[in-house]
């Protein structure tokens, strides 16, 4: 029994990471119908900025947290302004290839700035791991879960309760119609990018004490986060959250009960099965289009 609880705790730790990243994917898709394959790289930028601010420049935790997010969100806006908006024929496939290109570029830039080695930082609070019936849960995992829930709740309120949020959703549904009623759709897309990359940066910042941050951490995290978003239902914030935790817990149960060598295989097999049964994910939002 103690083992099972420990597997679930391990799953919650990695699941929270996947969930945090999945939310960023979903958020952008929700507002622009675009999948940003450079999202993992923005997570990397967030994590490494945090490491630099907190370790090297000794900025206290909270300002460093906010500053990293602000810097990365600004980069995200720059990315939208320079490479997404300038596209003449913004077809989905073209935009996706651009994000793939951007991910390669950002990875290279990350390598030049932070070097090839891994970096680490201290947990947010130095408490001993929580002990539940002999199983251990990291305090940093609690932090991750708490912060991610907070951010998702914030985003949820933003979409449902504010005019800007609704305007953003309107742009995603029909850009032309939104423009006709006077919504500045370009600004909305820019804002969506800032929010999504900022969300990615937040994910990077909270996971930095757990994973070792390096310039090439983004690809795998992005992939897992994307899977989690698909699993939960792309476009649904709460779905992404559930998808992330589900993927993390399934992985660690797979390790514990079947084999650690098949960890990724088990998780991806389940993803295939779930998508086969429910093509739009567990919580299906609006209809998901196929490219």
């Amino acid at each position, binding site marked *: 029994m103690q*083992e099972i609880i*420990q*597997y679930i*705790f*391990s*799953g919650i*730790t*990695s699941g929270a*990471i996947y969930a945090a990243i999945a939310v960023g994917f979903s958020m952008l898709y929700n507002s622009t119908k675009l999948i940003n394959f450079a999202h993992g790289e923005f997570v990397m930028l967030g994590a490494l900025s945090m490491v630099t601010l907190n370790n090297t420049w000794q900025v206290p935790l909270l300002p460093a947290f906010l500053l990293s997010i602000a810097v990365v969100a600004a980069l995200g806006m720059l990315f939208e302004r*320079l*490479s*997404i908006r*300038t*596209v*003449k024929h913004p077809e989905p496939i*073209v935009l996706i*290839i*651009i994000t793939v*290109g*951007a991910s*390669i*570029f950002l990875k*290279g830039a990350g390598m030049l700035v932070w070097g*090839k*080695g*891994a*970096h*680490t930082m*201290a947990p947010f609070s130095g408490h001993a*791991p929580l002990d539940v019936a002999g199983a*251990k849960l*990291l305090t940093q995992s609690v932090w991750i879960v708490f912060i991610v829930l907070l951010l998702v709740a914030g985003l949820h309120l933003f979409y449902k309760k504010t005019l800007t949020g609704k305007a953003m959703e309107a742009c995603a549904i029909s850009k032309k119609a939104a423009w006709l009623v006077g919504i500045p759709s370009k600004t909305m897309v820019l804002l969506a990018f800032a929010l999504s990359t900022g969300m990615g940066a937040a994910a990077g910042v909270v*996971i930095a004490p*757990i*994973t*070792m941050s*390096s310039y*090439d*951490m983004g690809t*795998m*995290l992005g992939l897992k986060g994307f899977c989690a978003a698909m699993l939960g239902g792309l476009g649904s914030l709460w779905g992404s959250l559930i998808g992330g935790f589900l993927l993390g817990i399934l*992985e*660690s*149960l797979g*390790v*514990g009960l079947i084999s*650690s*060598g098949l*960890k*990724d295989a088990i998780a991806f097999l389940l993803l295939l099965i779930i998508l086969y049964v429910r093509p739009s994910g567990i919580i299906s939002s609006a209809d998901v289009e196929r490219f």
Partner: protein
Amino acid sequence: MNACTKALKVSLIPALAAVVFLAFSISPASASAADTYKIGGIFAVTGPASFLGDPEKKSMEMAVDQINAAGGVNGHKLEAVIYDTEGDPSKTVMSVSKLINKDNVIAIIGPSRTPTTLAVVPMVKKARIPFISCAAGNKIVEPVKPWVFKTAQSDILAVASIYQHMKKQDVKKIGIITVGNAFGESGKEQLLEQASEYGIQVVSSQSFGGKDSDMTAQLTKIRKEEPDAIVCWGTNPGPAVVAKNVEQLGLEMPLYQSHGVASPKFIELAGKAAEGILLPTGKILVADLLAEADPQKAVLSDYIDAYEARYKTSVSGFGGYAYDAVHLLAKAMKNTDGDQNQIRENLENTSGHVGVSGTFNFSEQDHNGLAPDAFVMVKINNGTWQLIR
């Protein structure tokens, strides 16, 4: 499309720079006098294995300069022609064919990784060129191939030193956790194969991905089998995560790591969790702790001082492979007039060469030439290495 072209342009710039750089590094070669001995170097200078290739390239250049400053080999100056493999087997094959066909080198040193080495072994065999690899994999010299030598310690020796230490501590049951790549697989193979020799039983064997952020599930599974010790086999950053997870789970048994993490970086990454970890390492890491009587002590301090003075960075544990290779080769080249058959024979008959990575005794059956005493066991104590005698 702008971003596409932008990304393309950006990726083109380093490529162009590399071409220009290569052009410059080649051009003096064609102009140089005929009586220099050209030796090829192929290292993963950039890419994921650059932590190996970069110090290797620097060490090779340094060794060549040292030998030239001392008058060269029988009056012939050495000249290094070095290409970057990026750790990629297909680029390595291209570089080797360039070295053989265009640069007409006498011998080749490198590459840095086992897969890239294995990719070019058939080529050097066919071209009959003395070849000294800097990679760790045991498959390179097992079975022995006439033209292929290597200077890096094999994982066989690392596993042997761990098991010897365990035997002294009366460890009977162990759990192992290895990374899912060539390094981890090879370590796992050796751990499983040699266990019975030392009366050790592997009760649980787990693996993890090189980029995984949490290994508590695997460690929980190992804990269930109640082993006396845990062995982790991988390169950074995975093993640092394992060390942290072991501490978080409150596991009491000793944790052994491989020589793959024998660098100050590991202590930095694992932090407090690194305390008490045991691992085998080449002597370079603990050069100043070695007994004065140790035959390697003088060689090591010469190498470290020269490297740090020249490159203004702290020495890495890996550059020594290339340093040893150049010196072994220079020794074997003496009085051969550049004849490759003779160089090969001299290499095979080299014995008692004291290098950075150990004392080399090559023979017809052994083209690595090192004994388990090439490794020492160290314990991490107060954020630094402590030699276990």
